């Protein structure tokens, strides 16, 4: 991500790094403290505006003609004649501050309107017209941003002589680029949006669509920008007046008041403090209002990965009937539940009572559509869910020893590794890949610098990256997707973990690359004897790699068993439907059978079969009672090939499968 100059200038005020963020994210709720401050700021600014407009009737004294005998009187607060005291010429400070507000706001608003209008028009023209017009406008804006702005302003005022119109024009000339860049960026971004494209396809004219959608998106961004600029202009005016290049005596300006009275600051502090406070509060209030208009500075959802979810396993007696009686699983999980805080106060139950075992060297496929809870359940085990997720389980065992989620999280990067779906975005973009692997080795294996480097190169070679020495020094962006996934695999196996969680590791890759990465995973798995939990929605992939499979639907396991037998004879209607909907080169069916209806969405805890609405076998019992995952009758007689299924009609499905 590189920041353009204009972004840098405006986002410094603590707004969202991207002033256009609303277009994509919609309005966010502001934290209450920001809102309250915002309202206070608006109230204060209204007060300043009212004072400026009605200065002549509000101000208790003349701002220009002082009473010399009353010079340098200290603030009388509520009792004295002069609320905030007088200056060296006997002029009332409060009155001068009120008239100063008028000066400041006249100049501020004039500049913002002038430069805002010009900048908006320039940005619209650049965005709409594109081509050389765009080039010229943006080049000028770029160059002007690199100008020594205030100095040029000073030189112009120096030769022209200070006057309010000159001041306004000179400051405005230096402010238009920010608006132009903003508007242009918004126009260009809107043009790329799907709905604008779609409307273009259907024959609407682009300008019309843009006009319709541009304004609602543009106004808040422009308002924010204008307020930030107003704050800046107020500061510039005050500074120029302070330097004697802005508002001239005897007129009142806050900056001028500070310079006039600076010599008396030690004997009459109020002459300098009061106008300065008025100035600082006005600028601060304007900045705060800009923050509110921008939709708040804090995006709670985006930022809380730093805090780990509080998961705890309560140690209870393991329900023997639901455990698979094969000795020595690496990891054994019972009744895992994950829920998120929903829109209101209700919880979204993403995972409901999932149990599984994984043995050393075994590849366990976890299959399901998006939203089935397959990724969430595995992420919860690793403790990488966003804040607000509640994770619980009846028991967790690692190599037969009961442990807590915290223990499990401590094993990350040593005994447990993970491979993600998109290899490119899971590598640090600014660190050479080899160093990232070496870093893992130094941390998990306590290797020295040189040893880690040598081993990292070995690992790169192991995952089939040609020229590992050379590739060690390269950055992620220099790798193709498949090569990057190989790097991710090297990273994951570097600590020689006992368990590897692979979350859709091939989904983002080309089909040919998929096959290579899969065979690499298989090879690495056999060579290092790692247990792999392989999460995917692709049945073809899982068939090629997994020894055993869990099929998940709506946050529950609906069927479990050895991959081969599961694929040959599904016992749950969902599994059967999933297989029927998957193309298979070995099976020359004429057409695929899509599953009717929409996938169930995780929500309230389900008390009946979640698949019932889409299932052709469903009867009354399915809609009333929840089927429990239990050992399938058909497999009970075959030890070692135990299958479990959660369906009221497993028998009819087995028969239907046999007759097909």
């Amino acid at each position, binding site marked *: 991500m*590189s920041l353009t100059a204009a972004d840098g200038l405006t986002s410094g005020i603590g707004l969202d790094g991207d002033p256009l963020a609303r277009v994509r994210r919609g309005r966010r709720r502001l934290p209450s403290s920001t809102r309250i401050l915002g309202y206070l700021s608006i109230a204060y600014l209204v007060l300043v505006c009212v004072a400026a407009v009605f200065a002549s009737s509000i101000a208790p004294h003349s701002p220009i003609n002082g009473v010399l005998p009353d010079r340098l009187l200290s603030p009388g607060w509520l009792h004295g004649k002069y609320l905030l005291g007088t200056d060296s010429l006997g002029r009332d400070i409060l009155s001068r501050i009120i008239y100063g507000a008028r000066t400041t706001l006249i100049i501020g608003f004039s500049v913002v309107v002038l430069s805002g209008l010009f900048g908006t028009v320039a940005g619209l023209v650049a965005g709409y017209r594109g081509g050389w017009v765009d080039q010229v406008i943006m080049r000028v804006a770029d160059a002007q941003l690199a100008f020594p702005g205030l*100095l040029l302003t000073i030189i112009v005022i*120096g*030769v022209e002589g200070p006057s309010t119109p000159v001041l306004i024009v000179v400051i405005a000339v230096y402010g238009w680029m920010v608006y132009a860049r903003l508007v242009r960026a918004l126009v260009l971004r809107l043009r790329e949006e799907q709905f604008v494209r779609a409307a273009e396809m259907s024959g609407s004219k682009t300008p019309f669509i843009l006009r319709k959608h541009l304004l609602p998106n543009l106004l808040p961004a422009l308002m924010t920008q204008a307020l930030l600029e107003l704050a800046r202009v107020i500061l510039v005016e005050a500074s120029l007046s302070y330097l004697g290049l802005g508002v001239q005596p005897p007129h009142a300006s806050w900056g001028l008041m*500070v310079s006039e009275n600076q010599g008396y600051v030690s004997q009459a502090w109020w002459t300098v*403090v009061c106008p300065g406070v008025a100035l600082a509060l006005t600028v601060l209030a304007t900045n705060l209002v800009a923050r509110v208009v921008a939709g708040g500075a804090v995006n709670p959802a985006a930022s809380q990965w730093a805090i780990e979810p509080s998961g705890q396993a309560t140690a209870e007696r393991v329900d023997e009937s639901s455990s698979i009686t094969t000795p020595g699983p690496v990891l054994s999980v019972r009744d895992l539940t994950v829920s998120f805080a929903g829109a209101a106060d209700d919880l979204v139950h993403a995972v409901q009572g999932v149990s599984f075992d994984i043995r050393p060297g075994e590849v366990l496929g976890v299959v399901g559509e998006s939203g089935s809870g397959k990724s969430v359940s595995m992420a919860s085990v690793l403790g990488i869910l966003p804040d607000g997720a509640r994770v619980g389980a009846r028991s967790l065992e690692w190599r037969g020893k009961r442990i807590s989620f915290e223990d499990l999280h401590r094993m990350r990067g040593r005994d447990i590794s993970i491979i993600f779906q998109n290899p490119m975005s899971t*590598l640090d973009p600014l660190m050479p890949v080899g160093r990232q692997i070496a870093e893992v080795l130094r941390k998990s294996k306590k290797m020295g610098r040189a040893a880690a480097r040598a081993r990292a190169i070995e690992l790169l070679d192991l995952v089939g990256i040609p020229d590992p020495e050379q590739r060690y020094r390269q950055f992620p962006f220099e790798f193709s997707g498949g090569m990057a996934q190989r790097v991710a695999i090297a990273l994951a196996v570097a600590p020689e973990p006992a368990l590897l969680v692979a979350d859709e590791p091939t989904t983002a890759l080309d089909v040919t690359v998929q096959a290579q990465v899969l065979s690499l995973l298989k090879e690495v798995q056999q060579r290092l004897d790692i247990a792999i939990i392989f999460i995917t929605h692709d049945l073809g992939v899982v068939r090629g790699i997994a020894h055993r499979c869990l099929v998940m639907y709506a946050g529950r396991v609906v069927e479990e068993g050895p991959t081969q037998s599961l694929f040959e004879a599904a016992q749950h209607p969902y599994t059967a439907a999933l297989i029927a909907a998957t193309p298979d080169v070995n099976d020359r069916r004429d057409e695929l059978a899509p599953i009717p209806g929409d996938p169930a969405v995780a929500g309230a805890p389900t008390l009946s079969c979640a698949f019932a609405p889409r299932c052709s076998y469903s009867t009354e019992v399915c809609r009333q009672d929840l089927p429990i995952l239990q050992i399938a009758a058909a497999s009970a007689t075959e030890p070692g090939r135990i299958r479990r299924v959660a369906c009221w009609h497993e028998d009819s499905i087995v028969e239907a499968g046999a007759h097909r």
Partner: protein
Amino acid sequence: MTVFVLRRLVHGALVMLAVTLTVFFVTRLLTDPVQVMTPIGASPADKAALTEKLGLSHSLWSQLGTFFSQLVHGDFGRSYWQDAPALSLVGQRIPKTLELVGAGLLIALVGFIPLGVFASLRPGRLLDNVISAFCLTGVSIAPFWLGTMLILGFSEHLGWFPSAGSGGLRYLVLPAVTLALPMGGRIALITRVTMVEQWSQSYVVALRARGYGSARIIMAHLLRNVMVPILTLASYEAAFALAGYAVVVETVFAWPGFGQLAIQAVQQRDIVLLQAIVFIAALFVVAANLIADLACRVIDPRTKVA
């Protein structure tokens, strides 16, 4: 890399050309330099002499030609007010301004980037609110007023630091802090925003899944990733300070840099000197941008050649 540097250099040269042309036309078209530079009631002979001296009797285009041929030879003309070569007058002041801006920038970077990092750890919580409020206040306070208040507190009352002039380190503290607060405020705020963004990036989640602690993730990975926007902003801050805020801060603290010289030149209506000051300031602005571009390029090898 060479192409990148060359392109940036060409861009910088174009900006310099634009600045020079702007100054040339502003001083000759918007006003009559002779009228500006001579005192009221000067004799026609004096005016004629100055017109001749500044070469204003020739056509605008031939003036432009002379102007540039002199520039190329490093001749910025003689200051009317000081009766000395303008360039050497500015040159004497450069180290002082660089000292001030360098110290200010150092405080802003070293002191405020950590503030932004701490604020980003728990957005919306107390620490974040306190830091954000502090930075926003720093951004909103006019430097000339802040400087005056610092003088009132730390020189007049406490007597810790001198209020004006330059000399040892003690003279540098107050002006540098005055310059650093608004710069640092903006730097901390952008650090916070980009850090918050980074925390939700997949690679950070992946680091977490590898069992890395927050401190390690920040030190070894995040800081490098947030450096590009921070450096870009810092270069603009440096440029603004050199060609703007420094004028104000130098005036408040009577700091003998070229900002103070600029104000004196305006007061003396010495256009020749002003031209030289703006040209030198623009040179520094362009250099600051160039350095930042190069630094970003080194940190982030993906940076496009623009």
